[in-house]
């Protein structure tokens, strides 16, 4: 019985090693913040279904945006917030929904952009894209 218990602990310990390694390796790529409420998230399929009633905002870096982005999306990130926000607001109207995305890996900037749009600009119907840019790419295929 004791031997069995010891072996179980050994297996658990061995399983913990790669998990701890992965957690350390990905610590800057994983969002450790509390999960976004479901009401503030939208799937790619649903967001695409909104058609021209949606404004897509790319919260990644300008370099990533220049490489490729959701067609029609506008760039808006924290680094250049002051400069980029006016063009977003110039395209907004009350009946439109706003979809913010960034890279799914460490996607903290889209929720931050969404939070600032709600709090600072007092916009309603602002959503974070579930799975981010990678989810959109996957859906496009």
């Amino acid at each position, binding site marked *: 019985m004791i*031997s069995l218990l*010891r*072996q179980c602990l*050994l297996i658990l310990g061995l399983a913990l090693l790669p998990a701890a390694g992965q957690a*350390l*390796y990905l*610590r*800057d790529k994983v969002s450790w913040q509390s999960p976004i409420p479901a009401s503030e998230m939208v799937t790619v399929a649903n967001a695409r279904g909104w058609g021209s009633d949606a404004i897509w905002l790319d919260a990644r*870096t300008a*370099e990533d945006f220049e490489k490729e982005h959701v067609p029609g999306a506008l760039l808006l990130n*924290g*680094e*250049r*917030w*002051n*400069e980029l*926000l*006016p063009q977003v*607001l*110039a395209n907004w*109207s*009350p*009946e439109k929904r706003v979809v913010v995305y960034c890279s799914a890996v*460490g996607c903290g900037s889209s929720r*931050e952009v969404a939070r*600032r749009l709600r709090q*600072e*600009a*007092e*916009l309603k119907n602002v959503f974070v894209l579930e799975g981010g840019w990678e989810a959109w790419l996957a859906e496009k295929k």
Partner: protein
Amino acid sequence: MNLPTKLLLGALFLGISTGAQAQLTWEKTEIELNPPAGAESAVATFKYENKGTTPINIKAVRTSCGCTTAALKKNDVAPGEKGEITATFKPGDNVGVLQKTVTVETDDAKTPQTVLTLKANITQMLVLQPNFVFWQANEDPKPKTIVATAGKGVTIKSLEVTSSTPDFTTKVEPGAAAGEFKIIVQPRETSHQINANLTIKPDSSVSPGKVFNASARVIPGAT
């Protein structure tokens, strides 16, 4: 051979094989910064020492975003040698608590990678609430107010507000508290679409010349 014997032999082998080793030890792997409001950059210094018996080569230093740079004076660290990596974070227009990382890769087999974390608490120099006011087409063109509040530790003597179009008038009044201003915005008419950028220049010793933006619009009716 039973299990405890195997484990003992394994530990012994590991101990022998790591007899002569490199060991890069960090004074801190996480640094919290509280730069003053309006600061253009925040700098964190991560100090290290090679406490091992063999030299270490720092192969690469990577940062988690383009907003952070990391400077390293030399890549080779002799046994007993001390050094530092200086990480400079430029917050841009970000606000709140931001976490950035610097990943250090070495040829040390024991710890090939170390992640250094920089947490910066960024305070806004001027908070605009809201930073967007709008009127629907043909809505009564009543004035709307943007409250501008100086950030913590910032003294703002006055504000200068200009609209990019003469279709909006702006007026600045003192707010309810010290360091607070009311920006009163009003469209001349709401019969057609208007987009205006409001440029707000605070008179402050903090980041002189820094300009903030707010937006004012008359939005056409839904089609």
